[in-house]
């Protein structure tokens, strides 16, 4: 079972069996977006930052 710890709130999260590297998941405790960085060993990091910008 792939269990990881949220880098924001330390909540324990179990990855789905079909999780993929690069997948964005949401921490069920604090709601932050996390990116699956590796599967073996299972590792997540904060997902890429979201910005806003004007322009076409």
């Amino acid at each position, binding site marked *: 079972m792939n269990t990881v710890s949220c880098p924001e709130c330390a909540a324990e999260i179990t990855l789905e069996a079909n999780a993929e590297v690069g997948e964005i998941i949401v921490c069920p405790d604090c709601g932050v*977006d996390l990116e699956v960085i590796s599967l073996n060993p299972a590792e997540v990091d904060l997902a*890429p930052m979201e*910005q*806003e*910008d*004007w*322009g076409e």
Partner: protein
Amino acid sequence: MSETLIGLVSNYSPSGQERGAVEWLVARMKALGYDDALIDGAGNAVGVMGSGPRQVVLLGHIDTVPGEIPVRVERDNISLYGRGSVDAKGPLACFTDTVAQVGAVEGWQFVVIGAVEEERDSDGARFIVDKYRPDFLIVGEPNRWDRVALGYKGSAWAEITVKREQTHTASGEQTAAEAAVEAWLAVKAFAEAFNADKTRAFDKILPTLRGMESGQDGFEQWARLKVGVRLPVEMNPGQWYLEMEKTLQVLETCKVSVERVGYPVPAWSCEKNSQLVRAMLSGIRSQGGTPSFVYKTGTADLNIVAPIWQCPAVVYGPGDSALDHTPNEHISLDEYAKAVDALAAVLRKLVTPSA
């Protein structure tokens, strides 16, 4: 590496005058080894590499806003100045060079499109919506080489006309012009109420008053407002027009009409959890970048094709969009080269996921 970019920027092509740039790009695609390159029925430049059946469409636009800027490389060969160098010939040239670099891949087809008229009514993008059904869509707009744009707001235009019977100026009754001001304030109040719990500009309704005029004859007074709006995903243009009509019914002394103007465009937000987004993150990192996501308050050809094609999509391209439409438009040649290498890594990852 910069030959495509410099050549494309050197062919000045404001909306409606794209033909020379289109012919140049088609010839360039042929010279770069594309399997086919042609001008389609709308006047778009189209380059095809590979035969499919799976397909990636890379949709840029070849038109620019008007205002020719002398094309030149400045600051020790670091920056290319010229109209469209950022918006959006940089991204389109990047697509063209990237596909040439990756070449044909068995089972896949890459289609690079330089669409016309994006800066006006997106005629080029509207033409292609029923011509392709890609597995993946990458739209070309400047967002910096290390950012992936996931959403563009919708837009809509309306003319609000207020009319009433002529009155004596001493009567103290509300004039059509005064009622038009009230109408605009009501539209703004509706937007402010809708926006109250929203933190991102992407999620807000952003109306702007773009023009106003009024007049009268012996029998009638009238006032007209030109209102533009940038819309969130939550409010499509049809809903917006209905809400405006409902909001403006409160004006009791005047007859109010809302006329829909031009082509309304719904907002679009791309799915973040897609194979394409994963490939983008990986491709940017492969060139030493730290990727981030961006949501835009403007509108792009993404808004035209993505709702129809319903495939994983992103918007990507080198360049600083703060320079869009400015007399100082320029792009870093280093950034351009990085974007080509990053996007090539993206395409390779996409067509061979184990890569």
